[in-house]
């Protein structure tokens, strides 16, 4: 494997020394491009008090290519499907090499705070969210308590 670009080392160091509140990201011992990530559910959202596990992988072409991020914890969210895949523009077409792991994770956290059912990934959840927002939020809260217990 090609050696680790200086940028990745720099980012990793910063994530450890100057962590984002509510987010942790640790590189794997064997593969420094693979990160174990936890995100706290934002206050005021149905995911409050939940702790969500994610995985993040930096492909070889990073930073030209966006990192791959996926929820490991089950979550009820219109932009996150059952497999944990996330629908977020900056992870796809709107990726810019100026973005970093830190900014990506902040965006994911923001996505939890403000779901966007109009650009859904999990269609059933999105439908539910549009028809019955309260019910959906209750269900999300329920799932959080069930699966994302701190």
């Amino acid at each position: 494997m090609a050696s680790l670009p200086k940028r990745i080392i720099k980012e990793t160091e910063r994530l450890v020394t100057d962590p984002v509140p509510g987010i942790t990201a640790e590189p794997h011992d064997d593969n420094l491009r693979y990160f174990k990530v936890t995100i706290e559910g934002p206050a005021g959202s149905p995911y409050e008090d939940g702790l969500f596990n994610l995985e993040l992988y930096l492909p070889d072409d990073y930073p030209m290519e966006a990192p791959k991020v996926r929820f490991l914890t089950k979550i009820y969210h219109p932009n996150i499907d059952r497999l944990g895949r996330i629908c977020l523009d900056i992870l796809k077409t709107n990726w810019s090499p100026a973005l970093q792991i830190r900014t990506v994770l902040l965006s994911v956290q923001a996505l939890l705070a403000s779901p966007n059912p109009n650009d859904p990934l999990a269609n059933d959840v999105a439908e539910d969210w549009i028809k019955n927002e309260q019910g959906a939020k209750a269900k999300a809260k329920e799932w959080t308590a069930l699966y994302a217990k701190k």
Partner: protein
Amino acid sequence: MTDSGTPKEDRKRFFKDELESSESQIPSLAERLDKSKSFLFGETTEPEDSGSSLFVPNQMDIVEFEKGFKEIMPDISDKMCKTLFEKFEGDAKPVASAVDYYFDHNKSLIKESKKDTEIIDLSDDSYDDQHSSSIIHSNHMNSDPPIHSDSHPKLTFQSLFSQKKDELKKRKAETTNERIAKRKKSSILWKKFLGSMQVTAMATRPTIRPLKYGSELKLHVTESKNLSPSKIYDSKGKRKLSMAQLVKLRDREQDREIGRIPEDIAQIVYPLIDESGVSFEVTLVYSGDKRLSIGDSFIIQLDCFLTSQLFEKEPVSSQSDSTSLKQSGWEISTNAISETQEEVANKYKRVGLLALFNKLRIKEVTDEAKVLESIDNSEPDIVDLEDDDTFESIVSENNNEQDINHSDTMDLNQLQNFYSIAQSLETLKNLPETTPSKDIMKLNLRRYQKQGLTWMLRREGEFSKAASSEEITPPDAMMNPLWKQFIWPNDMSWVSKRDSSVPKSSIENIFYYANLHTGEFSMEKPILVTSMKGGILSDEMGLGKTISTLSLILSAPRDSSSEGKNLFEKEPSEMSPSLTKNPQKPYASKTTLIVVPMSLLHQWHSEFEKSCSDKNLHAEIYYGGNVSNLKAHLTKSKNPPTVLITTYGIIQNEWTKLVKTSEPEIDLNSTTGLFSVSFYRIVLDEGHIIRNRQTITSKAVLQLTGKCKWVLTGTPIINRLDDMYSLVKFLNLEPWSQIGFWKQFVSIPFENKHFKEAFDVVNSILEPVFLRRTKSMKDVDGKPLVDLPPKEVVVERLQFNEDQDTVYKQLLNRAEDSVKLGLARGDLLKKYSTILVNILRLRQVCCDVRLLGSKDENDEDLSNNNIMLNGQLDINSLLTGNDNGTKTNDFTEEELAKTIKIIGEKYYPIEDSSSFECSICTTEPIALSAIIFTECEHAFCKGCLIEYCDYQHMKNLDMKCPLCRHEISKDRLLALKKKEDGSYELCHFNTKSRSSKIVALANHLQQLQDSSPSEQVVVFSQFSSYLDILDNELGEIFSSKSTKIYKFDGRLSLKDRSSVLKDFQIKIPGVQKILLLSLKAGGVGLNLTSASYAFMMDPWWSPSMEDQAIDRIHRIGQKKNVKVTRFIMENSIEEKMLQIQERKRTIGEAMDADEDDRRKRRIDEIKMLFE
């Protein structure tokens, strides 16, 4: 004629026959004899009138007497014989009395006979006292059985001295032969049976009675041997005359012609009949039990013997043989030198011998032990040419053998064989190790280097200094490869059958040896003596030839013999011939001259300083003018340099001056330079440089004189076997340094595709003087000689950028057209240079479009053909010519000025804005030279943004500013340009020029810098103009703080070379050092082990050249894993070149026999390129 004819009539008729048959004006042998007789007896009767009855009895008597006498005294001259006959004519036992008298009055008799017969002096004067004493000697040798001088001497003597009969015959021929034969004649002590063949002869005269089985015949040459070779052979060496007419069979008893032998046998026999070294005996085997008529065939057995004379050849004569061989060797190649008649005769004698050996199917003994084992059983068969079946089978057997040999020629990996034989010597492994003491050598040698030192010291005859194992090396007990070993067959000749009491020579010698090329024979094993000192050290690259050589120099820094200390030293006569040839040259006994390519000059010097711990020894570099009088400096001064290092160029320079100033004879005494002294030792580093002996450099180097000579080269053969010749010539390796020998035994067989033969000879030439070890070889304990860290070579395939793609396609079309045209017209060769130029351009585009138009310094085929290259190539026209409306969204002048103004105001003053961070690679701050601004006023690293643009382009995505997502374009970027006063100004950034390879290289370097910031990296290219481009581009991409770039190519001066290399080797923490190295200038010799990363920017035709380059870093001293990246453009000519490289690796480039083959191969390659 009738059956009742008396002997008298027979005799008479014989004479007539004889006269009839001798059509030429030159008198025949018999005539001469008769003439002489007639003189003696005062008879004036001419042979034509031989019918007179008075003449006949006399004649009978003297013939009888002569015969009998000569059986005892084979060397007796005719005239002496006649003198004796006169004396004892009336005696009861004339022969016996004559013999007695001869022994008693030997000397006086000779004088007498000389005096008496002056008028009829037919024999030559060389029969002097010395000779007659040798005759006596020979008689004593054979006189063990007492001589019975009976009334029938003939019978007695015949059995006892039958072997002398041939000599008699031969002597007769010789004495009557008026050759200017001045060479010393010695008597025949013995003869040995060589082989027999049965031959069908044809009767040319009818016989009265059937010939008896077993009756003796003899071969007789009808024409006088005075017949000059030029009459027999025409200028092209073809026979003008039929040999069968010249060689006749005669009845021994009646001395009358009977028949003739077939032409093919006659051709073999004719040149050998009077050759004292070979004798024949003919016995009738079958004649059908009836009398012969003309045209009848009968079968004879031809027994062939070799006599002692053949084995007694003086070295002088063998040398003259070798000179004639030399000339004939020349003749083959030049057809210019005409040979003297005698040389022609000699040549055909050799040919005859060779043919005889073939005819007798005498086979070379290859396995001595096996033969000795089976010696009791071996029964050489008489070759029966009539037996068709056996003959066929033998022939077909031979053919099979040839087929096998022939199939060997198909094995194109002979070069590997050649090397492997040189290496496989078990003795090599068991060479003792010589460890130079710490007092003289600081460095520790590896095991194999110590062994090498032993070998080298031995080669120089310094046995006392070399460590010795139990067996002191025998002086190369190797048989001279030109000689072949044969076994004496059992005597199957008729002589031995006729009389079993003939003492058979005991088997004291089972074998004999013959050099069928020169006609030399020997009973002793011909040992190849190499008196030359030195050799070829051909260890594989990176095994430390330099260190080995230095250890030799330090172990034996001066010629100890010239100080009279060393007992092992040989006499001056055994010193190298060139030394004795120029005795007037002063001898620099304390100095070793080392000749190196320029790039290695300082490396040798520093290696010497590193390894030498004896303060009295020092090395000096000699380049032209720095020593005014080298002769005095080396021979007169108190402490001359132990090592004088110079370059091939300087030698060539000095030589050219010498040749120019002094003509025609070069007076070496008047000079004071390199050619004025004879060195103790001369070492040629990278000795293959002199492989072409036509170059001035080679000629000059060959003129250097020294006692010990060494050649160091990892690749002694570059293109053909003849490459070795210059090395052999330099080493004075006799006899191979004579071009004639080399041509005959190496070049010509090789050209005729007899690869095995040629390689065998080269092998045996080299075996004693050649040492080669490879990295993969194992020592006695089975450990590899060198334990190098692993080497990883990765081929990285890249894609063209837009511009490259456009230009490449254009050029490819052109090139393909010209090749197709050439192939169609069949004049591809004529278009060769055009095609090569086209190919070159394609290769250049693969590197960088800006390379177009520069020339390729490495391609020899093109170096003289620059007219083509100088034709300017308009890249822009190529680019735009195919430009079907792709929009260029370049800045307009206005837009550019506006953007510059905005950015310039935003970041003012720009030099102080030290806080630019590249959001892509997070570098902070970005070096000013590497900053690039987007239109939206954002700053990035040049490399990062370009990579981003290329990535987006590749993925067909929009290019947006990574920071603000404003649309950006590669054509609308700004960069900072350094002004002369050191400040920076904004300017338009042109990305067009950066080629894929440079981008890829920059990425690799960046990655490397990120992970390990203080690495040394070597970047190879064959285009020095490409190195310039790389220098610029990398300088722009990387900051000078973290990256230091060195450039090393042919244009660098000597002084700069050493300083560049020295600087590069020093590791500075946090600084990446990049050495841009020209494949040609730096491909050989350099030691760059401080670097462990290498990038090959472009492929070269020959893989070995690239291997050489890689070995600059992958060699002894390298401690880290070596990583090599080779950049290859995808779907381009470079990929084809890789294929060609593969091909070359498998078939071995060295197998090209000549220039033509090489060209043809390259045409194949060209076809391959455009498939």
